[in-house]
């Protein structure tokens, strides 16, 4: 909606560099648990905790899966910063996840 998102971002209080990650899981499946563990350690190691992890269980909330078109689980969506990215799988391939989240190179 906003014509100048950049300006807004700059004005945003400490929002810059903050990551909002939404992880879709299916119940307590093995891959879902793995994905959550992988995502947590990635946040610590590469983002120094500058991130919020939102988890959604599609078994409990299928409407959320409909909204974000989640066909396979686990699935991770980088909600912010834009542009939005979707990563499918248990996130075990860390370099690939970092590249997708535009984090490779910037930290090491």
């Amino acid at each position, binding site marked *: 909606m906003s014509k100048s998102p950049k300006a807004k971002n700059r004005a945003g209080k400490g929002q810059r560099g903050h990551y909002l990650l939404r992880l879709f899981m299916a119940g307590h499946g093995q891959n879902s648990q793995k*994905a959550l563990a992988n995502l947590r350690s990635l946040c610590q190691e590469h983002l120094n905790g500058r991130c919020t992890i939102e988890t959604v269980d599609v078994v409990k909330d299928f409407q959320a899966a*409909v909204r974000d*078109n989640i066909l*396979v689980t686990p699935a991770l969506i980088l909600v912010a910063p834009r542009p939005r990215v979707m*990563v*499918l*799988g248990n996130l*075990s*391939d860390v370099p690939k996840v970092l590249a997708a989240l535009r984090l490779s190179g910037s930290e090491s």
Partner: protein
Amino acid sequence: MHGKRRPIPKVPTQIAGLDEVLEGGVPRGRTTLASGGPGSGKTVLGMEFLCRGAMAGEPGVFVTFEERAEAVRTNALSMGWDLAGLEKAGKVAVVEARLNGEEVLSGDFDIRGILAIVEGHAKRIRAKRVVMDALDVLLRVYGDPQRERNELYRLHDWLTDRKLTNVLSVKAQLDGNMAYRYEFLDFMADCVIRLDHRVVGQVATRRLRVIKYRGSGFGTNEYPYVIGGHGIVLFPLTQAELTHQPLGPKVPSGLAGLDAMLDGGFRSAACILIAGTSGTGKTTLACAFARTACRRKEKVLYLNFEESQEAMIAGMLSAGIDLRPALRTQRLMVQTALPEAMGSDNHLVRALEAIDSFKPAHLILDAISACVRMGSEQAAFDYLMRLVAVVKERGITCILTNQITGLLSGGEELSGIGFSSVVDAVIHLRFVDAGQEIGRQILIVKARGSGHSNRRESFYITDQGINFPNNLRLPSARAGQANPKDGGK
């Protein structure tokens, strides 16, 4: 307990002809696989199964992995199924499940996301059926046959646990390794339907075959089908053939002279072939029959592949046969088409639809010699066999004209395409050189279940109609001794 097989519960698809082949329908609460190449009608089959179910009180979820939901709704509407309306009524849910291809893959995943979505909708509308269209598109994300297989087993278990009657469609290419890749799907599914779209003699034809049906018998032939204006129409020929009606009572031919030769007329529900070279009066004979039948308030469907309705009416007027009253009273329905205009399957559907809606007592097809132009001799043969099978099943009298070339010397195949075995009566017309003029002669070659003259009789086509100068009358004028044993079936 043993020995006798208990019939498995089935769900009728209500797709025209398919339930006969499946001996009742698809297995209830189980998986049916529909595979075929592009354009074979997999999506239509799934959609029709779902819509007809929803309209008959079995709600269902349609999952589309390839097309957009909006396109699915539009396509359904073109077949007369109001998906949006059914969705609003809570009888159908359409789920668009398309990956956009920009997702990054990292590590293992499974299809529980889509299953959760389907489950949510299924609960909401109390679904009994699920159709998953173009499943191969979803599976492509795995890029690994082993993982695809695992996911399909997961899906199969999930559907079976929920007792959802489901139809899965996959694209099966003949080339490449796609066919092999989905081979195990054939093992997994309880019922496997193969759809085939091929081009024979420049005319597209579609064939359906049931590969397997766990716990049930099924028709094992290849069945032609068309995608008509209201979904899929299948022609299970062998089934139709078994239910021929016996020949009925005599029905006047429309000509006193011919009635005399035929010992009173044609048998109703018979298949009558009128053969002769061009101009010998085949159409005139057929139209004389139609006019008289309509006067008796019987309905006649006239399939004309030779000329337009206007040309036919005008031509008959000059021969003293006025068909206009029959048209006015709507007892005569003329359906004209160029044989080349469509494939033989489509011609058949058109004729069958007319038979269904018009319910004629008699049918005239003019001329079978033109049917070859539907594509090939085989196509014409299939068309006629199927049409005659349906006509016989319903006890409709059927007159076929056939234009032959050259003179008859005896023993010729008068139908032109090896079709004579289903014909009950054969009439041969020819020109004779009568010195100063050309005359016409008529001969009853055969007439099953009827006595008949064995003589060639002269006749004239005048502007007052057809005249038999020998003043034939019933029954004394019957020349030649008709074989009384000719009667019976």
